[in-house]
């Protein structure tokens, strides 16, 4: 299993508009990093580019999973190498039950990783899934509902965390996983997120613009992004500074 993800001077554009202007970030397994910053600072784009969204063109830099270059891989291959993206706005896929889809994804990833565990059948998979849903307080009927169809904002976010828990990535990127959640849901999601992260020794990069998430998740590093770059990083003291002076205080340097 891979140990580190190394992002170096990553640059990306959508059409002719540059959005990432050289992002560097190292993360090891078992670590939690939080990226904060104002809207439009490039946080979501960074996660999307890490997962290989074809909408963006990478114009420079590198992303290495241990010694393996990720930028040349399709989103499929990146997922099969152990990367995961929890979406800010998860897509609705009509007519495809969440449970069937997740089992297909799980078995596809295991077979690509030449895992020794045989493909999991519908019944044991459903039992596992039900247990994971219980932990996130998701109604078990969601298993047979179309992916994200008619889900509330909070249910969509829970479903993303559920998918992460089931697919067991090595590094997961979670985009605004806290937005649209009320305080109770936020507690449940954060608790489960930490539990899964700890159990599987996962590396997490969480994007948020709400410092409240720090009440529930203890990151190893906090990064501040602005204008497509990381402009500051550190521990909790950074958050105190944001709360006191706002994000602008990092831009004046």
């Amino acid at each position, binding site marked *: 299993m891979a140990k580190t993800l190394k992002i170096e001077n990553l640059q990306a554009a959508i059409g002719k508009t540059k959005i990432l202007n050289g992002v560097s970030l190292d993360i090891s397994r078992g670590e939690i990093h939080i990226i904060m910053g104002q809207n439009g600072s490039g946080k979501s784009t960074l996660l999307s580019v890490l997962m290989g969204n*074809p909408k963006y063109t990478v114009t420079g830099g590198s992303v290495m999973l241990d010694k393996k270059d990720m930028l040349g891989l*399709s989103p499929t291959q990146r*997922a099969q190498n152990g990367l995961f993206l929890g*979406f800010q706005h998860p897509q609705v*896929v009509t*007519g495809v039950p969440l449970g069937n889809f997740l089992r*297909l994804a799980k078995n596809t990833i295991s077979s690509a990783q030449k895992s020794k565990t045989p493909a999991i059948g519908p019944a044991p998979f459903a039992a596992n899934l039900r247990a994971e849903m219980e932990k996130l307080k998701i109604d078990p009927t969601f298993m047979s509902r179309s992916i994200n169809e008619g889900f509330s904002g909070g249910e969509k976010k829970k479903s993303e965390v559920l998918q992460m828990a089931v697919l067991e990535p090595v590094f997961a990127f979670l985009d605004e996983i806290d937005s649209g959640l009320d305080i109770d849901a936020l507690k449940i999601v954060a608790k489960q997120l930490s539990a899964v992260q700890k159990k599987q020794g996962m590396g997490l990069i969480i994007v948020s613009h709400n410092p409240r998430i720090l009440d529930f998740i203890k990151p190893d590093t906090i990064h501040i992004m602005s204008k497509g770059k990381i402009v500051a990083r550190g521990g909790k003291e950074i958050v105190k500074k944001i709360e006191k002076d706002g994000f602008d205080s990092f831009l004046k340097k």
Partner: protein
Amino acid sequence: MAIPQKTKKMLTQTGDNSAFSFRTKTKSFFASQKGLNADIIREISRQKNEPQWMLDFRLHAYEVFLGKEMPRWGADLSGIDFDNIRYYVRPQDKSKRSWDDVPKEIKDTFDKLGIPEAEKKFLAGTGAQFESEMIYHSLAENLAKQGVIFESTDDAIKNHPELFKKYFGTVIPPGDNKFAALNSAVWSGGSFIYVPKGVHVELPLQAYFRINTENMGQFERTLIIADEGSSVHYVEGCTAPTYSSDSLHSAVVEIIVKKGARVQYTTIQNWSGNVYNLVTKRAMAYENAEMFWLDCNLGSKVTMKYPSIILRERGAKGEIQSLAFASKGQHQDAGGKVMHLAPDTSSTIISKSISKNGGRSTYRGLVKVIKGAKNVKTRVVCDALMLDKDSRSDTYPTMDIKEEDVAIAHEATVASIGEDELFYLMSRGLSEEQAATLIVNGFANPIIRKLPMEYAVELNRLLALEMTGSVG
């Protein structure tokens, strides 16, 4: 993949899938020369040893056929050469009731398609048509005891002459359209079903149609009569080997749904890519009767088919659901028609089409409500999914409403597979092809799930085959 691999090969192949494109070498009992004239029609009738009225019916229909022009609307039919078709190919002397009596070469064909096996497992009755004739029919004993009739249309004209004559040609007269006229002139084979009052046939009756000869025309004729308060579900499947030149399949299906009865007619059409499939299907629904057409078209070169329902008496209900998949070189021109002729009648038409690799699909529908048909409800939904820019989808919904007291709903959508949707599914480890197949299955699912489970599994497998190699 979520699509089960070990499914029964009971129904069909896709157009290009070699697994079912086999041809069987058989000796025909009789094959007419190519082309059509009155003498050939007389010979068909003589071979079948039919009553005079049927010969007269055929000859009259032939005159109607000659007098009608080719339809100028709809799909391109210019490739049909009426002089290069064998109108009647008789594979054996008569229909059998046991697979053991069916000639070996023909039985092998149906064995390869898994038909006898399916019969044992989940069907109340089975029919099999090879070329022009039904070569096999069987019906569960308990149903036969209750008076249910399920036999070839050719046998029914002899065994049940009064019932036959009372209903034959009453829902679709020869003058209805050029191809109904052609069928009426040269018809052969098909199923005849009669369900007595109050009898419910719980398991489906299935008929399987196979064209084996090149340049063959298959013109089966199916007649279903569901007497008062009865119910039946009939399923048909169709395949043919791929030849370099075209074949013609032109069936006529007439259904009579008496007071309080229910009929479901399910089609899984998967002709090879050189078959013109021009079929006329219509049901007459009486008081509080229910008719449901479930029509899946995956194969053929050209299909023109608009299952119709005449809601003739108060309280009758009609539903038409169709799924069309058009790939390269295919035009699926399908839809449905409903005539509301009485008050308190209701109808639903749901059409879903998928076009890829330059395939073309057309929805063509008609809802008609006559003056005085009060409190009518009708809903029409057509959804098209296009997988690439070369494909084409057109919608021609027609509403002809002469009554004010009606509730009409009409929805239409055209969608393509979005990059965002693909990225979302691929970010979970699925290949682009798996992701696209999942989206297509999800789109088709509301219709597929109406099928009996065995057919739903088969149809999902066919869709997955159609999607193989379609992206990236």
